[in-house]
């Protein structure tokens, strides 16, 4: 822990990453109550208002809705979905990947075959198809679906980290000293794989944000009136030539959040994996 803090001090990019992430979390929690406008309010006097006019710090869209309010409110759903997604997909990945890697043999072969099949379809396409099956997206369905789409990837990573430890002699020692499979997997091995798993979970967090945004952009994400960053980009793309800010700001919001999390993930991978 002390080592991590020490390394953080000499890594300004990671500090910036944490700062931006915490800023977004703060805005998501407290932001909407600080805004002059609500995210649905249509200011008919100020449609397509450039940033700074009529009290709209970031301008308005074609309907006169305040962009800042919409972006800040939009951060709630995207952060919620991404956070739960990275948690669920990592947890499920650990259970599935660990079991497959640990028991090996036929179980592992079948697992790898299934993985090959599932990974042959891009996660985004898989998510779109499942979303089509589920109908209108809610935070619940979105979380569930992205988690499922990511499980093949997380399970593969979990399996890989387990395999690097399965060959270690301490696992053999535990076996012949009366430990059962469950406690070998989760009591003996899991604590030693936390580094790569934390890195994977943070990377998944970033990927989930990208995924939620992309799905919103494609119109299969959260349904209106919930503001969604990706959806804002495609909605406002029609007015991009007159109001480029209406597209630019939600895009920058996505970029800032994903880059911030990626910097954190990069930092973790440097500290937790490469230097241990």
């Amino acid at each position, binding site marked *: 822990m002390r080592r991590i803090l020490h390394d953080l001090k000499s890594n300004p990019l990671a500090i910036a990453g944490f700062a931006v992430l915490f800023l977004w979390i703060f805005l998501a929690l407290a932001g909407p109550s600080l805004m002059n406008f609500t995210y649905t309010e249509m200011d008919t006097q100020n449609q397509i208002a450039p940033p700074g006019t009529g009290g709209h710090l970031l301008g308005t869209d074609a309907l006169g809705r305040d962009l800042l309010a919409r972006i800040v409110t939009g951060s709630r759903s995207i952060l919620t979905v991404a956070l739960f997604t990275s948690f669920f997909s990592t947890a499920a990945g650990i259970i599935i990947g660990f079991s497959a890697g640990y028991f090996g043999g036929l179980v592992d072969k079948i697992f790898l075959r299934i993985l090959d099949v599932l990974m042959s379809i891009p996660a985004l396409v898989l998510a779109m198809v499942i979303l089509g099956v589920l109908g209108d997206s809610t935070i619940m369905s979105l979380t569930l679906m992205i988690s499922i789409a990511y499980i093949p990837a997380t399970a593969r990573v979990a399996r890989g980290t387990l395999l690097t430890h399965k060959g*270690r*002699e*301490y696992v*053999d020692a535990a076996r*012949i*000293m*009366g430990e059962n499979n469950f406690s070998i997997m989760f009591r003996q091995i899991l604590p030693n794989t936390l580094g790569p798993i934390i890195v994977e979970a943070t990377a998944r967090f970033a990927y989930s944000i990208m995924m939620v945004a992309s799905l919103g952009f494609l119109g299969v994400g959260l349904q209106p009136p919930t503001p969604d960053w990706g959806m804002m980009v495609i909605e406002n793309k029609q007015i991009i030539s007159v109001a480029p800010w209406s597209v630019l700001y939600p895009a920058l919001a996505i970029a800032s959040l994903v880059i911030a999390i990626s910097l954190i993930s990069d930092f973790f991978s440097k500290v937790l994996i490469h230097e241990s």
Partner: protein
Amino acid sequence: MNHNIILDVQGLSVNYQTYYGTVSALRDVTFKLKEKQSLGIIGESGSGKSTLAFSIMNYLASNGSTDGNILYQGENILEKSEREMVGLRGNKIAMVYQNPYSSLNPSLTIGKQLDEVTIFHRNLSKKDARKESVAILKDLYLGDAEGLVKRFPHQISGGMQQRICIAMALLCRPDLMILDEPTTALDVTTEAVILDLINDLKKRYQMSMIYISHDMGVVNKVSDNIAVMYRGEVVEYGDKKSMFHKPEHPYTRALINCIPRSGIVKEEYRLNTIPGYVRKRSIDEGGCPFLDRCGKRVENCESRYGLREIAEDHFTACDRAFAKDVADDSLIPKKVDVIEKTEDGEALNIVNLYKTFNSRGKKVRAVDGLNFSLKKNNVLGIVGESGCGKSTLGYTVTGLLKPSKGKIYFDGTDISMTWKRRSPEVLKEIQLIFQNPGRSLNPSFTIEQIIGRPMKRLLGIKSKTERRERIIEILKQVDLGKEYLKRKATQLSGGEMQRVAVARAFVLSPGLIVCDEPTSALDVSVQSSVLNLLTDLQQRSGASYIFISHDLNVVNYISDYIMVMYLGRIVEFGKRDEVTSPPYHPYTEALLSAVPDVDPALTKGAVRLEGAPPNPTKKIKGCPFAGRCHKKIGEICENVTPEPVGFGEIHSIACHLYSAD
């Protein structure tokens, strides 16, 4: 300017900038190397011997800084630019490394990797370079050189790869060749062949040599002079005979007597040990580097030290050496006799045991029909080259692997199954101590958890306080205090970790312990204390050991019985002294004569094995050793499997040499 001196190292210091501060890797190293002279450098891990080698190549990591001079033919290497070094490296000064496989580029042919040396250094055309490469391979007695140059590194054996690396170093007829543990990754029989080759080349090519190794026996075979390094300093330097017979520095003395060697056995001697372990040296730490582990220290050791000449061409850094009051720190003959052995019954009985693995649809016979038994309260040493099946046997006995065929009985109980189907009572009785303690102890557990878990699972001790009391007691037996309870394995040195592993095994009071190369990953000074500990605990507890090692000297020291394995079969089995003296199985004879001796005055027979053991996927009709045997009698060796022939009560040899009589 003395033209006789090829390399003159003057006050060389190397420091590394790390997270933990500045670490001193070399300090004030000074020595001279004459033309055609060979210098052996001995040191344990952390002694700076490899750093010294790379400094001479002017090739250090970016966090390293140097001080002092390395004069090669009068020119300071450390002041040369990368561009100037290109002309020296591989041309005038060449190097051979520990791991030949990883030192060869996997995606270029051997020929290509040889050719480029002469293309760059001697401006040869591709065609001439290839001629030159083939010629040098032939010069190193490698048959089919033309075929060899077209192959890739992964297609040839480790011993062959190392010969390629040596050939590569010789291509430009260097003045100086540096060999950094070139045989450490190889089997002892291959090592012997390579060492012979090096000796032969040294004479033929008239070059100077620096040979780096942790193994005193190996260094003795190839060098004229020896330098002993400890924590970045040369502590003693001199002619190899006087170094062995009249060592002056306390570290050299202690080191020589740590090493098990022929004629040293557990009944007669305790090995010398050096307390503590090698610590990293910070830049601020002055004084004698050996101070904290030295039994002979006095007050002025902290200030007074430095290399001085005590006899002609014999230097030592210990100030005490002049006082002549340093008592000889030699092997301690055992005073108290061994507790009388109770040998009632067999601890282990193995009947017709086979273990085959599937590798891409082919069967690999790792253990190929073993029959033997081990009496209670005895140590059985198993020796053999890598791939002979000794570890597979150990893993099958402990239940990590399931026998393919045959039976294993422990104390009369059938245990021919894996750990999954063994009862806690059986699991408790058979313990395993692994080669690498860093990997056999869970890095995220405390020592208390590591030793406590099996007590809870196998002995059913539920009370934490009761467990703790017994853990403290067992830690004391392995010379560790109770301050270790809360530490994690990653915070311990290699020797301490292996002690914890020993404690974890003994806390269950097992009847049989399989020791799989338990000291191979340790430095010799630590190895001796672990060997002493294992011997003491064995004699006190009456447990039996299966002691697996590639090191014949270690096996010879600790074992009551020795079993020699080759390609999954037993070629010789018997009491220790029966196996290590004639009549021999030809393979045993070859192994014994391959072991380099610590004492330079001793010379051994020269039975040398060429080639490698045959492919274990092929079914062998006759004797597995027939293809490499120097005493092969004829077709019978290749066509008929030799049955073990008995000599006396237990001793048996599986060879037609004896059955034919």
